[in-house]
């Protein structure tokens, strides 16, 4: 019979409509989805476009993602942006069907002439976090908690470890993951809290947690210990309403410029020169950065700037996979 795309065509394929498909966290996940939404919101304000946000369900397959993206593309949204590496394959597939639409994906590198892969040098940001941690710790023990042991979180770990080691090789680094290959790791604050508690009890006083929503648990636990610091990820966690009471324990956050990347893509499409290919947002162009809210790392500024310079200048290459 009639296909849904045929009937949808009568709807406007008007200009200035942007589609953003989130990963399961949704637009208020206090993490990279939220950052993407910030980019979209800014585009709405500054470019006058309208943005349609869609959210994935738990346990989706590529077919579900393809459907979501197809619906957006078919309804005339341009660009269509998938947030999260799981959208990678789906974007490749859908982009081939809609050559006139620009597709973007965060944290993945899709194929196709009309696609734009936005990845971030998390390891470089994490390197800085490692430097900050190494300069802050008094016990000379720091910790890293990952939500799920996968390549993406591995970048965080690798950068952090290198940053600590190259600042002070005497520091002991405890590394722990909540789960191996089980997405529960991004939504289990109780477990993160326990893991942080274990590290704290063994003397760690700076803990970097890269575990999505689970991070709240760890930061809360850290806040309960005098002199201990937590480092957040993705968004500036100091600013998050849910974490307001622990602000004083959030040393800094490794911020991914997802908002900037998303905004850039939308802007490029609006201007008629859509971005394509793969772009890694690096430290050099502020694609990743350390948040300074709270001012706790202000006195470390010289060292951090030095570290940044060395990375940007290529004096230091940051590993993106942890040493086994």
């Amino acid at each position, binding site marked *: 019979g009639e296909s849904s795309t045929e009937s949808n065509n009568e709807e406007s394929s008007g200009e200035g409509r942007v589609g953003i498909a989130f990963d*399961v*966290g*949704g*637009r*208020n*996940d*206090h993490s990279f989805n939220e950052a993407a939404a910030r980019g979209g919101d800014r585009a709405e304000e500054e470019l006058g476009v309208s943005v349609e946000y869609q*959210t994935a369900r*738990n346990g989706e397959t590529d077919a579900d993602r393809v459907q979501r993206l197809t619906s957006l593309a078919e309804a005339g949204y341009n660009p269509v942006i998938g947030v999260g590496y799981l959208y990678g394959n789906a974007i490749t597939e859908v982009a081939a069907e809609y050559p006139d639409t620009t597709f973007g994906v965060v944290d993945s590198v899709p194929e196709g002439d009309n696609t734009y892969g936005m990845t971030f040098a998390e390891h470089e940001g994490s390197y800085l976090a490692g430097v900050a941690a190494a300069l802050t710790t008094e016990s000379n023990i720091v910790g890293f908690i990952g939500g799920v*042991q996968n390549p993406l979180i591995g970048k965080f770990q690798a950068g952090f470890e290198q940053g600590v080691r190259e600042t002070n090789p005497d520091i002991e680094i405890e590394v*722990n*993951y*909540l*789960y*191996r290959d089980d997405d*529960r790791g991004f*939504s*289990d*604050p*109780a*477990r993160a*809290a*326990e*893991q942080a*508690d*274990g590290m704290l*009890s*063994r003397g760690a006083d700076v803990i970097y947690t890269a575990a999505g*929503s689970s991070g*709240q*648990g760890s930061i*809360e636990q850290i806040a309960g210990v005098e002199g201990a610091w937590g480092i957040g990820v993705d968004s500036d966690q100091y600013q*998050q*309403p*849910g*974490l307001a009471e622990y602000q004083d324990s959030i040393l800094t956050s490794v911020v991914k410029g997802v908002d900037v990347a998303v905004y850039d893509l939308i802007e490029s499409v609006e201007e008629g020169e859509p971005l394509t290919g793969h772009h890694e947002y690096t430290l050099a162009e502020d694609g990743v950065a350390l948040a300074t809210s709270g001012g706790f790392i202000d006195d470390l500024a010289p060292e951090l700037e030095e570290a940044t310079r060395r990375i940007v200048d290529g004096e230091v290459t940051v590993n993106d996979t942890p040493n086994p």
Partner: protein
Amino acid sequence: MTTPLSTLAGKVRPRGRVAEERRGRLTYPVVLLIIAGALLLLSLVRAITDQQSLTSAAQWGAAMGFAVPIGLAGLGGLWAERAGVINIGLEGMMMLGLFSAGWIGWQHGPWAAVLAGIVGGALGGLLHAVATVTFGVDHIVSGVAINILALGVVQYLAKLWFAAEGSEALARGGNDKQSPQMERLEPFTVPGISDWLGDLDAKNWFLLSDLAGILRATVHEVSWLTLLAVLIFVGTYLVLWKSSFGLRLRSCGENPEATESLGVNVYLYKYLALAVSGGLAGLGGAYLAVLIRMYQDGQTGGRGYLGLATMIFGNWRPGGVAAGAGLFGFMDVLQTRDRPVVHAMLLLFALGLLVLAVWQFYRGKRAAAMAIAVLGGVMWLWYESTDTLPLELVTASPYLTTLLVLTLFAQRLRTPRAVGRPYRRGQAT
């Protein structure tokens, strides 16, 4: 044949049971003995491996915390199955409890959240009762349906109530996966004893410090809800085994027709049991919500199913459920807090299995003794030849342990006789 009845002489040999001395049953002295033995083993392993956290207060305190929600779910299962209804919907009821607690909690504080959690779970339990008791739906079928429904409802309402544009909940950090945070429920510490035990623990004396560490977990920074859970376990034992209400309820799970024939309203008791069952699972969910101070999508993470496992593991007795949940909690915390310790556990297992083998040998079961001894030996070798265990194995260790324990002891379990059987009023013969 001359007489109408010729006796086959010498063939009469009595076949009765060995008097009333009930061998092999767990009496209190035996349980105490086993506990003492386990403690000794633990101290030994701690001393050998120098893994202090094996018996540290923080470790055991956290284990209790991890055990509580699983244990409450298991206890919920126990209430239901003692009344004859299988409750595989515990997971769903836990979700309902988690959600209700998160929803009420951010507005009215943690204690209101606890209450809401209980109510939420109990509603799920009552739904299960309507389906299984009134409509006679197969228990497992209904339980699965409730799990699906609870997940759907919770996610729908969370989006509606925590993430609505412009709502207060959104402003205070809610989203479609989380509720805004509630106030913290401060734990309690018994002042003098806690410090005294803490000192003793720090000395690292064989057995004494270990005991102190474990005991300290019960007086130092303990959640009020953990205390509540302990009271509920004791209360469950008293209510189900020492009161007429409990007698009636249990008899519904053993022989509902007989119970009905004595004028007991079996439906009523099943309803009550399921309401309590759901309430307990809901409390387990509320415990999680209070712990992390909010509703978090997916936080139940299969704990309802694990509760079911502890119930079977615990032979449908509160003490057994507590032990099973404790085992889960302990193994889970061990790997979460301090991974190298899990390696030490290999030694503990090896020693435990060897002791078991000696016991089986003493009881005359040579084949079983040999098998267990070999398993213990393998564990020992493994311990000696490695320094760490792969993370994946560590993660799977609670489940492997459960599987192992059930395989060894399943035949000693005693299911309530009428559990899972459809029962209709007035159908007795």
